[in-house]
């Protein structure tokens, strides 16, 4: 029993980050009908900046939580700037252009990973833990730090969900992702909504990157792993579906933690791919997809 809780708790911790990551992918797809494969690079940049700035701030005498907050703000700001630039000069012109956006995002991956390597170097970085200690929940032991990150990710997901369901802007986003021309016929400024949606997606990736930095080794290619997992999560859940992205992410994370416990991580990855194939054979549109 205790083991089961431990596995589920671990799964949820990883899953919370996957959720933030895949929500961005699905949001971009919903509104612009493109898959931004360079989404992981927004995530990586934020993590890299945290990994560089946080030790610097800490050595300047700031307490660790403050140093983390400061570096996270810097990382998120850097990612948002990158997101805005790639949107204005790239993705804005490629809405509803699957092939064009595919080529652009692949090019961006190569370009950005090269740039990151130049700027940040190839060394593996680690970030000092923000908070020490572990908490015991139902006999499962969790590090306080991971629990906190998981909590932040869940709060953000909840906020996004509520905003989409309740605010006029959120409803406009949903309408535009159902039928962007019909949305424009209601006076919804699609161009502005698409930019907002893209930037919210970037923000989610940036926050996820900042949150993952203290609990992971930060490399210039960190985002690629998450892109694959996030993309699978979104496909399983149904491209463009918000609940689908959440369910898909938790599904992937649980398979990983169960597989990782009973076998080893590489077999867990194989299990994910096998299960994805089963899901897609049974429900090609994904669990929550519309068709």
């Amino acid at each position, binding site marked *: 029993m205790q083991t089961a809780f431990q596995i589920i708790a671990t799964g949820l911790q990883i899953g919370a980050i996957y959720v933030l990551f895949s929500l961005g992918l699905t949001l971009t797809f919903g509104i612009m009908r493109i898959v931004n494969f360079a989404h992981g690079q927004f995530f990586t940049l934020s993590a890299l900046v945290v990994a560089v700035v946080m030790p610097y701030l800490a050595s300047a005498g700031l307490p660790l939580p403050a140093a983390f907050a400061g570096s996270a703000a810097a990382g998120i700001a850097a990612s948002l700037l990158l997101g805005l630039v790639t949107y204005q000069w790239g993705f804005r012109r490629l809405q509803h252009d699957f092939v064009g956006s595919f080529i652009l995002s692949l090019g961006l991956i190569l370009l950005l990973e090269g740039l990151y390597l130049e700027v940040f170097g190839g060394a593996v970085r680690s970030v000092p833990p923000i908070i020490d200690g572990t908490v015991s929940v139902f006999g499962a032991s969790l590090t306080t730090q991971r629990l906190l990150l998981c909590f932040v990710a869940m709060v953000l997901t909840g906020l996004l969900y509520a905003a989409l369901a309740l605010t006029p802007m959120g*409803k406009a986003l949903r*309408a535009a992702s159902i039928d962007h021309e019909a949305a424009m016929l209601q006076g919804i400024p699609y161009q502005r909504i698409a930019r907002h949606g893209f930037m919210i997606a970037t923000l989610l990736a940036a926050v996820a990157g900042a949150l993952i930095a203290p609990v992971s080794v930060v490399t210039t290619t960190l985002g690629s792993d998450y892109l694959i997992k996030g993309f699978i999560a979104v496909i399983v859940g149904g491209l463009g579906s918000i609940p689908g992205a959440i369910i898909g992410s938790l599904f992937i994370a649980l398979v990983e933690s169960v597989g990782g416990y009973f076998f080893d991580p590489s077999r867990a990855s194989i299990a994910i791919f096998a299960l994805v194939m089963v899901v897609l054979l049974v429900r090609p549109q994904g669990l929550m997809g519309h068709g």
Partner: protein
Amino acid sequence: MTPTELSLEITDLSVDFGVVPALRGVSLALRKGRIATIIGANGAGKSTIMKAVCGLVKPRAGSVSLFGKPITGLPADEIVVRGLSLVPEGRRLFGSMTVRENLELGAYRRKDRLRVGEDFARMLDYFPALRDRLSTPVGSLSGGQQQMVAVGRALMSAPRILLLDEPTIGLAPAVVDDIAEIVKAIGRSGVDVLLVEQNAEVALSIADYGYILENGGIVAEDESAALARSETVRRAYLGI
């Protein structure tokens, strides 16, 4: 007729789809306080006129003006703000969203919140059948009710001109009569209506005057009663 009596004026409008011309120099006008209709067969270009007027399709040549001001080339969301609203072909509702959300989205750009509330109540007077369905996703409504939501959504932007693209297609005869009555009522409420229909009989019974569109060009224009009497119209569109 002075230009100020025209609410919508389309001049020499040409639209191409790739190399295929869809509209060849269409000119027509919507007069204030009247209901006009465009009748034509499938593929004659009726929907293309609607889309070009609303800004969803860019014309190759020609101009569209609203109350004497040009709107050609403006994005669709800006044209709505200027007082023109379209009920698109096939309704194009936001199917997974509720009736209330669909109606509210129609008023997305309006600042006069008080009036929006009044209009919302007015829509439920127009369409009492929607009263109990406000929290239902529109996708699960009947075709007739969906058409009511589509018309209501368009009216929620408080338009001065309403364009309707095939509002009766696929509906049961009784529902077609309901929609026809509603369109007439909208016309009486001071909104100028341009109606596109394949069902010429219904269209001519609603509209004051009409245009006949064939192969992307206007071939005839007259008062509804005169069109309904005309031998060619009777043969080609009324099946008599």
